[in-house]
């Protein structure tokens, strides 16, 4: 009896972790809404620092990092209890960040300071600050960990950072107001979305040259409203889903031909997104309508919109 107690308690404790969840930061509510993927309902709301935006989990999902932009800090939270463990020095106004594959270094875009800050999450100290263009936002790290990318919204560039020397080694122009950057899983391509330009530029990682450009056109919506921001690749990398901001649509892009195959109607001003563990469902954050739309990836159909807090911004999967 006594011997089985620890096992029993382990079972009880590990039960909540069994159900996969989507964590959504609510920019105006200073909270995180936790959506249970099985029931498609909000099961928890957790208070955070001021204006939470970027959100990402550590590799083992034991910690969650949150950019609390107006608190000028990155918060580290225990996802089990929802308690803030400690803050990380982040530089001013952290907006988006990315965790290096070494699970230790956070690359943070400081929107107001025109720098990218590298923070060691173990020693909790800033190990480098790299000058980049004005209003840095989009952040990405190549799968091999050798290259970090910062996009600057006003300079309209993708800045290529060597993660060893922590120096810029290339700057490439993109269209107006780049918001988000992402490497393909193999790392051979870098995609950068331009919100005002209304395009996604695809780069060859090896040569840092432009390979192609994706343009969007939603029927019945003025081109000014078609503003690509966040995007994600499907498991086979043949398809990308692109959030098109105030056009209230998500584009389905053929990642090989770079052609748009479909547009899916979602909530108002869609910016970021996260997949379910098997990538069969996609969750998009709709800022203005304050909800998260669930997309059936295979059918390319919106199936439900779930009310969350005010102005949902970032989304991350907790399997």
């Amino acid at each position, binding site marked *: 009896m006594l011997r089985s107690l620890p096992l029993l308690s382990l079972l009880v404790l590990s039960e909540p972790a069994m159900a996969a969840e989507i964590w959504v930061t609510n920019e105006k509510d200073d909270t995180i809404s936790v959506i249970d993927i099985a029931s498609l309902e909000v099961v928890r709301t957790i208070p955070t620092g001021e204006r939470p935006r970027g959100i990402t989990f550590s590799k083992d999902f034991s910690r969650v990092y949150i950019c609390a932009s107006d608190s000028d800090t990155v918060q580290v939270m225990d996802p089990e209890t929802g308690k803030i463990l400690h803050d990380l020095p982040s530089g001013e106004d952290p907006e988006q960040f990315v965790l290096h594959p070494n699970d230790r270094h956070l690359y943070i875009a400081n929107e107001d300071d025109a720098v990218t800050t590298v923070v060691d999450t173990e020693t909790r100290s800033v190990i480098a600050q790299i000058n980049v263009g004005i209003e840095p936002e989009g952040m990405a790290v190549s799968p091999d960990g050798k290259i970090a990318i910062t996009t600057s919204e006003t300079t309209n560039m993708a800045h290529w950072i060597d993660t060893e020397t922590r120096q810029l080694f290339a700057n490439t122009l993109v269209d107006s107001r780049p918001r988000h950057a992402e490497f393909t899983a193999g790392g051979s391509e870098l995609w950068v979305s331009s919100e005002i330009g209304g395009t996604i530029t695809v780069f060859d990682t090896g040569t840092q040259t432009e390979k192609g450009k994706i343009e969007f056109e*939603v*029927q*019945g*919506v003025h081109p000014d*409203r078609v503003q690509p921001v966040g995007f994600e690749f499907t498991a086979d990398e043949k398809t990308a889903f692109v959030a098109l901001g105030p*056009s*209230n649509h998500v584009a389905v892009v053929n990642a090989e031909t770079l052609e748009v195959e479909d547009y899916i*109607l*979602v*909530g*108002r001003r869609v910016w970021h997104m996260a997949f379910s563990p098997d990538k069969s469902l996609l969750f998009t954050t709709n800022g203005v*309508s304050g909800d998260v*739309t*669930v997309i059936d990836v295979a059918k390319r159909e*919106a*199936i*439900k*919109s779930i009310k969350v807090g005010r102005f949902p911004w970032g989304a991350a999967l907790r399997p």
Partner: protein
Amino acid sequence: MIPALIALRAIIAREALRFVGQRSRFVAALVRPLLWLIVFAAGFRAALGLSITPPYQTYTTYEVYIVPGLCGMILLFNGMQSSLSLVYDREMGSMRLLLTSPLPRWWLLFCRLLASTAISILQVYAFLAVTALYGIQFSAAGYVALLPALVIAGLMLGALGLALSSTIRQLENFAGVMNFVIFPMFFLSTALYPLWKMAESSELLHDICAVNPFTHAVELIRFALYAQFNGMALLWTTLTGLVLLALAIWGYDPARGMVRRKS
């Protein structure tokens, strides 16, 4: 076969024959809602999405919203059309022939109602087949759940037609019915706009829409198409249907009804 069933078969067969014979009527019944869908709804496409109201789970375009309302429109116009043909029958004398049958009059009227509803339902499914080709599809469960909803809504609107036809003396008066019954019923319902949209313009319009039996018929159809159940709409549609049927039976009763008073 018992006489009641013979009568039922004969009346349905006559309606079916009339329906097959008037292929243009079938095409017209199909073209009307398709025009609304493709031309009218295109103007209000709402590419940015309509707000979520039950039974919708997420944002929809106007084209998707309007489909159940257009199904209701087919039932409504068909109900009226069959009442028009009743007036015609009465003018031509075939109605008298029918009503001289020894069977109870309510049964004859009910058979007539069933026959016209069956034809309406065929037309609704034909319309849905075209909308599916157009790109607006529903789940298989939705198409199945739709059938009972169409039966109830179709009987109610058919009963409305019957009740009206008992008060119409001549074919020419039918235009009045169009103006004073069909159009207000159609426009003051949730067929074209959600209730919240009506409330935006006027509370009075919203309240009229909310009590309009056609609204409930449309909502019954709308929920059924999404394989959901709307108890309030069912209750309201059934009650109205029964009241209208009673009125029609009373109207056609030679001892008390309108038929005698007018003839």
